[in-house]
């Protein structure tokens, strides 16, 4: 008998990606285990999840020797990375639902309403 499920489907993989992305250096499965704050998954469970992620191309396996395997996430470099991030932000199905941005959420109708209530003394250039 197993107890109640400790994680949602796919949550472990997401959590692993999150942890790996927060680290500069590649990590071994043991090191990853130490980073878990909630219930710590078993070593074998972690290896299974990491192998799956590797197959999906989301994780890189760095094998210095069969007993020294570490993992990292592929990082696009510099400029490309920023461009790809911004285009992904733009592609997010409905940006307003996903992200509460500081700028750019109000449309012409909102602007007209604000302008009618708060008379504008000095427009921006």
């Amino acid at each position, binding site marked *: 008998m197993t107890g109640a499920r400790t994680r949602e489907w796919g949550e472990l993989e997401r959590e692993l990606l999150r942890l790996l992305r927060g680290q500069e250096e590649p990590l071994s499965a043991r090191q990853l285990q130490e980073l878990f704050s909630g219930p710590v998954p078993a070593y074998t469970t972690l290896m299974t999840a990491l192998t799956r992620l590797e197959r999906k191309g989301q994780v890189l396996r760095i094998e210095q020797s069969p007993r020294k395997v570490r993992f990292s996430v592929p990082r696009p470099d510099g400029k490309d*990375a920023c461009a790809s991030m911004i285009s992904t932000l733009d592609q997010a199905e409905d940006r307003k*639902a996903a992200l509460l*941005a*500081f*700028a*750019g959420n109000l449309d012409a109708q909102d602007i007209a309403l604000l302008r009618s209530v708060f008379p504008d003394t000095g427009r921006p250039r």
Partner: protein
Amino acid sequence: MTGEGLLLFVAACAGAAVLTAVLSPLVLTVGRWQLLHPRAALTAWFVAFFLGLSLAAAAVMGSVVAAVTVSEVASHGQAVLVTASGWLGLGAFGAVIAFVATSAAASTGVGQSSQVAAAVARSREERDGFTLVRFRGDQLIACAVPGKHPEILLSTAMEETLTVSQLQAVLAHEYAHLRQRHGWAVRIAQINALCLSRVRPGRALQRATVLLIELAADDAAARQAGAAHLANALTVLANAAGDESMHLRAVRLTARRWPSAARRRLPQAIRILPT
């Protein structure tokens, strides 16, 4: 209760629900109070929304109860009416549930975008209630990503353009989005708009929500970080991006009185140490 009494109850609830949906957008947009007190206005909108929803649910329950319990009916016609209203009510209820379930599943791009941002993060800093993610980028971006692991994303360009006090105000604005659960408000309004896309009240809640959450977050930031700093940040960004809405948000801040610097308290979570 008699069959007639129940049918009257159902009709009254359904009528009141429709009335709430039609009248609230008209009543709530009268005057300028909603722009001066966005948080109260937002609450009023959602109280009206949930009131309408409860009335509609009561109408459905009533119609089902009527169909199930009424044993004595005055006429053949009434029997047909009771049964039909019960089935119609249940059918509508089922349709709404199915629609909400599918549309909610379709709009879950949240996790992905935040993960992409994390991939190119310059630094990630765990703070109380959220993770501050600074990323390299020459666009002026600051946004809050609600969810299980809430994040506030900040581009390097934003940090370079604003002073520490101004940046603090921007951070306070994003923090208010997270604290006041604006992600949920937007999501509910969005699903409501999808369900009622053909009628005016459906869009009205969404329109009001998008505007009012921005103004409510501005108010919270003005109280915590200082209205002048927020107005300055808005003006700098309005000029840089040629965005009139931010300029008008700055003008709006001047229409109210704010706590003096001595009485402001900036939450620990959003403090930025000058570098």
